[in-house]
């Protein structure tokens, strides 16, 4: 799971929030770091990278609100 978290964190740091202090538990949406399009961009990256499909009903703001939450979501979809 640590590798998954680092992959997600690296992507967010590289593509969305360069030079920002983001950690595993940083709240991304409720604290104003990312918006809905950014969230969809992360979702699209993850679907391509892990060759999975994240159902719309699982792609909630809560599920994408931190790297920790995203890793938990991926775990539910079998990504370890």
């Amino acid at each position: 799971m640590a590798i998954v978290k680092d992959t997600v964190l690296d992507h967010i740091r590289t593509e969305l929030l360069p030079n920002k202090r983001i950690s595993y538990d940083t709240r991304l949406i409720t604290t104003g770091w990312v918006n809905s399009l950014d969230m969809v961009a992360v979702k699209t990256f993850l679907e391509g990278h892990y060759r999975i499909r994240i159902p719309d009903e699982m792609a909630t703001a809560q599920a994408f609100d931190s790297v920790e939450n995203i890793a938990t979501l991926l775990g539910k979809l079998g990504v370890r």
Partner: protein
Amino acid sequence: MPSPEKAPNHETADARRACRSWHRPPASLALSGGTVHVWRIDLDVPPPLVARLHRLLSSEEKERAARMHAPGADRRFVVSHGATRAILARYLTRPPEEIDFLTGAGGKPYLALPPGPSALCFNLSHSADLALCAVAVGRDLGVDVERIRPVADWPQIAARYFSPNENEALLALSDEAALTAFFQGWTGKEAYTKALGRGISRQWSQFTVSLAPDTLTELPPASVSAGGKDVFTLWPLAPSAGYVAAVAARGTGWRLGCWHWPGPGSIA
């Protein structure tokens, strides 16, 4: 599931003018049932104005603002929500701090007022240092604004969420024009689904909006599965250099008024 269908689009000189003309509002501004107003709110304002707008917020809004840790996010939240209260107060003729909101099943906020054909409806969106607040009477509506910026994987996003017609249109454009058109399409789709009180979904690929900055789209009923029962009209907006936006509202033939906040008579 409805099949992908090209929506009827039409382009008028009025539309082109309205999409780009933002005016200082008169001190007294009426809103008829056949009109939609969109207010442009600059979120980069001096601290004294931020402080005045903060005083208009409810305790819950102040708590949400305090949780904003991204640089400038608390200011943007306070100004967008405080200005929205000030704007709605113009129409409701009540103090902005006394306006109450409720949240719908899809998370869409609405005014805590009796519903009906004369009920004031609104929707708010912000991106970077710009917010738009759309207002109408008795008419479901949604608005979305985005700062045009590099987005990794945007062609993959378009492949998943845009219709075949939209993807075909994007492929015909240069890289820079395609990115702008992508944002125009994204704001149109998000404005429409916000008007329906719904969220982003893969069903977005089942309806087509115009990717042009000056072409209206009429979206037929049920453009999103289990969605609207009525026709919605989508207007692209050009709120500021480097931004694109769109407003969607139920019905056809409504007029659009675009205003810049604050104007004369504004509370703050």
